[in-house]
């Protein structure tokens, strides 16, 4: 393209201008979008939370699209129909006009005649009838006749209405053509339909334009548009309100049900839903209420049973203690004098003494358990150095370990490990864990490790006995649970030790966990917070031994 320099620069300027406008538009768009995003963040939250909001929004958007599309179709179609009607009317009128003008001008032969201008004016005036304001008017031009001037009623200047392109089509291409143009002929800017055709005459060619104001059509189109717009908006709003109402009808009971369920789960067992009518939601409410009632009844019954059971255990323990004391005293007497008895009797006295010890510790454990169950267990926490505690436990069990041929390996930090714990309970837990390890150690060494970090203290007890089968790591904490029920009880364990230990750990806000694998032994870990009442998030020691993991 060979553009001359000035036009190229002008083009460049124009394109630069266009680019700048584009950039500005994009910036404005982004700004609007950002503002929208700022507004959208809470909206997004609401969107996720509220079914109500979601349904209404979807309804609004969907109906807006639908109604908008439909409205556009209706408005466009009606405007087109209006316009087509007018165009057809004007076209047929144009045909008559051209016929009339051709007739009127047919009296002039080839030669130019001054009368022609008079006839042009008269014809334009006659065909215009009411004039530019009413029903349009006719202008006659003779662009190929320098002698003839444009004839229009009352000297209206029609040049702004007859564009170059239209003139070209009509005057030079000989077409019947039309165009809508806006012009101000004295009564403010008005849209006009300009329909043109040439008029055959003997002296040359004259063009006839019928110019019809589209005021009525424009008003009607605007009215239709306004009406459609209002109807559409009203419809969308109505749909939105309807959706809101309907959703509310459904969502409200669901919300009530949710709230009621929350209260129920919080322990307010007498909460019920209001049942209105007999519809689906009423059925839901009724069913919900039924469920709540059943649950409440069941829970109350279970609670009652549980209370009775605990009471029974407690009572039985207490009731047994008194006679046991008596029996104990008698047995102590007998045991003291066993040397004087027949060896068989003496042996019985020893057995009696041993079993009484067991019985007593069982009762003690039962009482402890029932105390936990009754919620009477109190944590007597004080800052305690756990290193001596661990040592003491191991020392106390040294005899048992020696008898079992189990070496207890202590791995303790060099520094004191201070934590706010109830030393009596921690000692009981550890004694229980180490005792179990020694008992199930199968003569292999037991490792006791103490670990600490900023928030927690942990003790692990590792044995290398038979270990635990999968799933048993939870079961071990159940009351009176045995890995092999057929196995004779060799040691004096009551079957309640780990249960009590678990309760003790919980009382500290700590964890007591077990790990085990068949043939590889087991490891128990006690973790308690450094400060009483803190929440545990992690433990300083691993539950699963490192060697097992790597293996």
């Amino acid at each position, binding site marked *: 393209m060979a553009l001359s320099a000035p036009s190229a620069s002008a083009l460049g300027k124009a394109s630069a201008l266009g680019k700048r406008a584009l950039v500005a538009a994009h910036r404005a768009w982004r700004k609007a979008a950002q503002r*929208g995003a700022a507004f959208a963040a809470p909206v997004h939250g609401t969107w996720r939370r509220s079914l109500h909001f979601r349904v209404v929004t979807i309804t609004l958007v969907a109906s*807006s699209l639908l109604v908008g599309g439909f409205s*556009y179709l209706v408005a466009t179609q009606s405007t087109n129909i209006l316009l087509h009607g007018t165009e057809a009317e004007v076209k047929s009128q144009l045909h008559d006009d051209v016929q009339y003008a051709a*007739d009127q001008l047919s009296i002039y032969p080839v030669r130019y005649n*001054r*009368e022609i201008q008079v006839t042009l004016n008269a014809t334009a005036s*006659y065909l215009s009838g009411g004039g530019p304001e009413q029903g349009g008017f006719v202008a006659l031009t003779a662009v190929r006749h320098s002698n003839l001037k444009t004839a229009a009623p009352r000297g209206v200047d029609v040049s702004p209405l007859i564009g170059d392109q239209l003139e070209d089509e009509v005057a030079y291409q000989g*077409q019947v053509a039309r165009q809508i143009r806006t012009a101000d002929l004295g009564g403010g800017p008005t*849209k006009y339909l300009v329909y043109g055709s040439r008029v055959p005459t*003997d002296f040359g060619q004259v063009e006839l334009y019928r110019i019809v104001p589209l005021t009525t059509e424009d008003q009607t189109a605007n009215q239709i548009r306004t009406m459609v717009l209002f109807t559409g908006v009203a419809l969308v709003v109505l749909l939105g309100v309807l959706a809101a109402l309907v959703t509310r009808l459904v969502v409200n009971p669901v919300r009530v049900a949710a709230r009621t369920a929350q209260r129920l789960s919080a322990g307010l067992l007498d909460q019920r839903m209001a049942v209105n009518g007999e519809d689906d939601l009423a059925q839901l409410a009724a069913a919900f209420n039924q469920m709540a009632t059943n649950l409440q009844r069941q829970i109350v019954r279970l609670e009652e049973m549980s209370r009775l059971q605990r009471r029974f255990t407690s009572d039985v323990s207490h009731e047994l203690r008194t006679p046991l004391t008596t029996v104990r005293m008698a047995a102590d007497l007998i045991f003291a004098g066993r040397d004087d008895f027949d060896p068989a009797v003496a042996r019985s006295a020893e057995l009696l003494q041993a079993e009484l010890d067991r019985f007593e510790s069982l009762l003690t454990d039962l009482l402890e358990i029932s105390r936990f169950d009754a919620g009477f267990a109190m944590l007597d926490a004080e800052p305690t150095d756990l290193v001596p505690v661990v040592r003491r436990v191991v020392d106390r069990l040294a005899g048992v370990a020696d008898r079992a041929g189990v070496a207890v390996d202590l791995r303790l930090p060099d520094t004191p490990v201070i934590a706010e714990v109830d030393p009596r309970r921690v000692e009981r837990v550890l004694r229980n864990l180490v005792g179990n390890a020694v008992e199930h150690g199968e003569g292999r060494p037991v490792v006791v490790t103490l670990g600490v970090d900023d928030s927690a203290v942990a003790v692990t007890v590792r044995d290398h006995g038979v270990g635990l089968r999968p799933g048993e790591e939870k079961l071990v904490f159940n009351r009176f649970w045995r890995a092999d029920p057929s196995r004779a009880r060799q040691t004096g364990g009551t079957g309640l030790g780990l249960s009590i230990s678990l309760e003790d750990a919980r009382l500290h806000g700590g964890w007591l966990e077990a790990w085990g694998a068949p043939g590889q032994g087991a490891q128990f870990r006690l973790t308690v917070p450094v400060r009483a009442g803190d929440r545990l998030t992690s433990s300083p020691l691993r539950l699963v031994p490192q060697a097992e993991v790597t293996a």
Partner: protein
Amino acid sequence: MRLRAVLAVVVAAGVGMAGCGIPDETPVRVDGPGPSPGFATEGASADPPPREAAASKDQFVDNYLQAAAGEARDAHARVSLYLAPAVRSGFKATQEEPSLNLVRVRTRTVADNGDGTATATLQVDQVGMLDGDGQVNPPTQTATTYTIKVGEVEGKPGWFVTTPPDVLLLDVAALSIYYERQNIYFWNVERTGLVPDPRYMPRAVSPAGQPTEILDRLIAGPSELLGAAVRRLPAGTQRTGTVPDTGDRLEISLSAEAGAQDYDPVELGRQLMWSLPSSMRKDLELRIEGQSPRVITEDQAFLDANPAYTSAETPERFAIYGGRIYRLNSSPNGGRDPLPAIITNAVNHDILLAALASGSGVTAAALVVKQGAGQRLLVGTTGGDRPRGFTPVDTVREAIGRPVWLKAPLDTGLVVVGGKLYRFGLDGGALTQVSLPGVGGAVSAVSAAPDGRRIAVVAGGRLYVAAIGRDDQSVEVQAARAVPTSLQQFTEVAWHDDGQLTAAWLRGGRSAIGTVTIDGVAEEVLYERGEAQVTYLVDYPRSPTDNQSVMYVAGGKGYDSQGPDQDGVIEANEVVNGPSNAAPGSATAPFYLN
């Protein structure tokens, strides 16, 4: 991102709704080809020769005297082209359609001045003023001599008029070349018939354009002569368009004023249709604003509207022989029909002159009979609501001239008695003198046009035409005008057609019969009768055909121009049932049933 999409959709919807009204401007849409341009039909050029056409100075002067001929509005421009550029500016048109001075050139001399210029001296008679509506009015100029200087202009071929007369001159001889005689018609004030008003139509006006021009002339009104005798179109009438030929009809559009209460649109339509030349006459569609269109056809009522048309193709001829009326065998059917019922044997004697006319359902006869030493006029009618026998009119006079009947309606006659013009009615009674304002000398002959509103009289040897107003009791001459002809010493006159008279005159003691247009523009000699003075002349006015039919008495012998005799003398065998011993030419006072 989803939000952006929603925003975009909303914006698009808004823009879409805003865009679905009627747009401010659309591209040009083409429906298809328009009507194809018509084929140009250039008629034969009817323009006077241009300035450069002259081969000699004499011809140049002749051409100059024709230059104004053609469409009136361009006459001034055409004449201007003959003028030297230096004098053109002083020669301004004073009106849009200037009147042309019609002159009859008696002599033209072109004298070379020796310096390349020439002086033309024209001796002329002023004939009249031809105005834009094609009517010839009495002359306003009195000059009898015009001097025109002819010269050359450097750098331009041909000659120029360097000293023009300050008026537009047109030689009457050019009228017949560049103009066509036409009649336009107006209703008489009693609305009983149409009165023709002769006009000249430039041949330069195309046939397609003539109806429009004719309509304009009708709207402009009748000529001065007819002014009081005829009705004008309703005041304010204008045409709202041209008069196009739509194939089988001419469409005439008039403003609402044309629909005035007292002017029947149908009558208006018939008037328009009669005003069109017969060659372009066809059905009319008359559109008056505020009224439904009417179609006017050439029906009987249309034909009846023009009294001139009622004349039969072949006129019934009669002659008086031995005081009795006989038919001539040149009448239809060989003249074997009996005489009209009104001419009974009881009255058919001692007759000197007779006039028969029929119209309006009445046949009227006026007979001049010998009564004692004098003559008496008898009138009688048959038909109509009051048929009566013959009644004498007035008293016995010494001599009574040829009576004529006025038609439309047929209730009045005119007769010249003792150099004065008198009226008589159907009921007899007295003769009433009709005064002729502006007419000098003794009246010697009278003739009436078929329309009954125009008469021609010969008075003091001059020829006059007059328009009359009348009722069944009186006749009043409203305007009279001398026919500006070069002829003198008229002795007899008869209406020949709508705009022409047949007249007899004497020139150098020799008599002649010829035609003269009522505006004096054209004159033609038909018969030279030598010493034999023409004392009696009747014509059969017919329109539109121009078939010369005239009967007269010259030197005491009766003549019939259509008779079998070469000379025109009425032979004895032409008199049906006449006496066998009749001498040729002894049949006197031949007349037509008008």
